[in-house]
């Protein structure tokens, strides 16, 4: 196999306006059947893993719970553990916050998932800095940005110590000899004293099938990249475009040597959206139709309010941008990544609206990002392969816009073409996620 292989993952449609719930084909966001359908579709397509996001407090806009996007989801690892029963090879990646969890408990849950899935567990490490989310937790409060990554790094290091603390063949189970544990020191004692954690004791689980579950890092900041270079097996990023992707790829892979790691030991997988059609024109029409659904009239106003920092519900979303300055005081949005430099963003948006004569809704459709890959299945397969061969990514995390059928067409029509190009596996060759990702 000489051609560099593409890695693909499936993101369960999330709680933002990428997910189109107004489509008549849109199904439940909470029924296990929806998760099963998407995961089984991903496995049918031989994808590397299935991905669940997390948010530990419902988002708010203008002091009230944001009601325009999908709201509500189940606890990630619980659903993934259930999915382990209805899939056989697919990796199962859960986002779990390092700020509002404790290493002993979370390392144990992740190891459990690895055991119960036969080596398919992955942990997407995220951190939170806001006191807003902290209000749901006993540890409450929040950390400075730098401290969050420090805590996350210590969290991962300590988790690895716990995962390593049983001897590889600790469980002997020799009935005749009466040895459940093979050696007197089968279970080591972990003694950790750091800036954020102080843990002493023995772990409750043997090493999992993967040894360590796959660690994913999401985020593009300098601290995030450095964290990924030091600790992660996969980085989940933006940077879906070719040039941008190449710069990011070179930057992150270039950081690995500092930690004694090889380039192939960290897989770079941007999150991407897609729109397909039988012809290029049809694909473009489909993409535009999806964008209009993703940015409904009320959503357009909500986006505007996040930048302008004020109530703008009185304006017509199909009308022009009002002549109104942004309120730069507190902001109206809670529970999502804050927009930096709202004054500059507002000025840019206004210039664009005036230049192109866009309504509020058209403007928001324009500025909030169209699909990454638009085209016929053949075009999309070619683009994906080209990105990987050109060193802009190791693969992609696909974000469908529909639950639960949003991956069907991709798996039925794009995956076979990637396989035809020799860029994607025809079948799983290993049983663990580490093997799928060529990390083993």
């Amino acid at each position, binding site marked *: 196999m000489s051609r560099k292989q593409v890695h693909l993952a499936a993101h369960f449609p999330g709680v933002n306006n990428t997910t189109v719930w107004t489509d008549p084909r849109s199904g439940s966001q*909470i029924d296990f059947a929806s998760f099963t359908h998407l995961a089984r579709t991903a496995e049918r397509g031989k994808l590397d893993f299935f991905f669940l996001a997390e948010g530990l407090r419902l988002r708010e806009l203008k002091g009230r719970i944001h009601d325009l996007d999908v*709201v509500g989801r189940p606890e990630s*690892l619980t659903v993934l553990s259930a999915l382990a*029963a209805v899939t056989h090879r697919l990796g199962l990646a859960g986002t779990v916050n390092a700020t*509002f969890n*404790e290493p002993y408990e979370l390392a144990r849950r992740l190891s459990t998932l690895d055991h119960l899935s036969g080596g398919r567990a992955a942990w997407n490490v995220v951190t939170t800095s806001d006191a807003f989310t902290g209000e749901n937790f006993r540890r409450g409060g929040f950390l400075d940005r730098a401290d969050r990554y420090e805590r996350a790094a210590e969290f991962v290091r300590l988790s690895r110590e716990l995962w390593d603390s049983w001897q590889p063949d600790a469980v002997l189970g020799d009935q005749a000899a009466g040895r459940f544990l093979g050696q007197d020191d089968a279970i080591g004692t972990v003694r950790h004293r750091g800036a954020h954690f102080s843990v002493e004791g023995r772990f409750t689980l043997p090493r999992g099938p993967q040894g360590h579950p796959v660690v994913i890092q999401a985020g593009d900041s300098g601290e995030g990249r450095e964290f990924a270079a030091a600790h992660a097996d996969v980085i989940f990023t933006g940077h879906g475009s070719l040039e941008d992707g190449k710069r990011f790829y070179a930057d992150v892979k270039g950081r690995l040597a500092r930690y004694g790691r090889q380039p192939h030991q960290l897989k770079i997988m941007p999150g991407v959206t897609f729109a397909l059609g039988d012809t290029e024109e049809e694909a473009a029409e489909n993409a535009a139709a999806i964008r209009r659904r993703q940015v*409904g009239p009320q959503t357009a106003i909500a986006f505007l309010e996040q930048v302008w920092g004020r109530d703008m519900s009185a304006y017509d979303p199909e009308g022009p941008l009002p002549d109104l300055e942004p309120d730069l005081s507190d902001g109206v949005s809670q529970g999502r990544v804050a927009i930096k430099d709202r004054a500059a963003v507002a000025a840019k948006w206004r210039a664009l609206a005036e230049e192109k004569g866009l309504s509020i809704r058209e403007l928001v459709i324009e500025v909030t990002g169209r699909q990454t890959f638009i085209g016929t299945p053949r075009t999309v397969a070619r683009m994906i392969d080209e990105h990987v061969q050109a060193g802009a990514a190791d693969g992609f995390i696909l974000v469908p816009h529909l639950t639960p059928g949003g991956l069907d067409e991709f798996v039925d029509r794009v995956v076979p073409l990637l396989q035809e190009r020799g860029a994607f596996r025809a079948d799983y060759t290993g049983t663990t996620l580490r093997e799928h990702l060529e990390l083993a």
Partner: protein
Amino acid sequence: MTLHLAVALDGAGWHPAAWREPSAAPRALFSARYWAGLVTEAERGLLDFVTIEDALGLQSTLTDAPDERTDQVRGRLDAVLLAARLAPLTHRIGLVPTATTTHTEPFHVAIGIAALDHVSGGRAGWRPQISARGFESRHFGRRDFPPLDQVLNRPGGADLSADPHVRDLFAEAGDAVEVARRLWDSWEDDAEIRDVPTGRFIDRDKLHYIDFAGRFFSVKGPSITPRSPQGQPVVAALAHARLPYEFAAAHADVVFVTPHSAEQARAIVTEVRELSADVKIFADLVVFLGDDAAGRKARLDELDGAELASDAAIFTGHVRELTGLLLEWQSAGIQGFRLRPGALPYDLWQIASGLTGELRARQAFRSRYEAPTLRGLLGLPRPASRYAEAR
């Protein structure tokens, strides 16, 4: 009058040497396949539910430290995730994992159990458990606990209920269950509206902040998880004394008690009933079944080098005799039993095929599952959201 029947699953069974029985699979205890075999067997027997034991530390023969034994089972999977792994493989049986309240985040536990209810279609329960052990607290390093052996050896004896530290842990557990129930109620059943004209996915007036503030933590809410099929999953508590009886009466739907005779059962039922008219009272029993039950237990005792000690009564004998005992205790007011198989899977086979058959022959056990949810099997109503009622 039928009775309820549950099985308590833990490792290779409740005897420390159970993993050495011929039917045991000691090397498979951390595999999904092993647990799938157990729970499907329990479902074949039409049992109400299985419980899954758990703790945030290793099993030990010492009161408050890990031991150096290599001849007993050590290690456990996270019980909530294990229950979730088993949910798609079963259809009607309830799944009741243990989760500690002492070192965990109530918010995480609540959404985990709610997720279990979603993936199982309404068959989730939760057994909240405190951890008073100092060695477990050192796995978290956030609170200093007095060594438990010191607590037990205080003047006045081993009544943990009187210890202020233990009382605090129960109070905290009570708050944790209260927070979980509020979070489970924090989405009204019909909160998701998908109203295309107004662009609203939810009616946010039907989502509620729980605003819990207590001595140990505060939680704002609402839950991130929509209301689950049972509304509130079933909460079950193990209780041996007044303080846990009070905890169970105030916070649980089911209480597991540990009488050692019909008279004791009657006395406990009287005491619990004074505290709660509604809680379902189950008695726990460790059981060794079959023709050679006593011989099997004796051999395991010998292998372990000690006679089995248990908080619950230990029964050895034929399923016919056990049937008689269960019916006798039932007439003392016990509504169901949580049987702890001495060895797995052997004693579970005996329960699922033998015992249920005997009970059925006396019209004392179901011949088919009569409801799709655990609440339905237990005859517990589905609660309305407290916030919907208040509106």
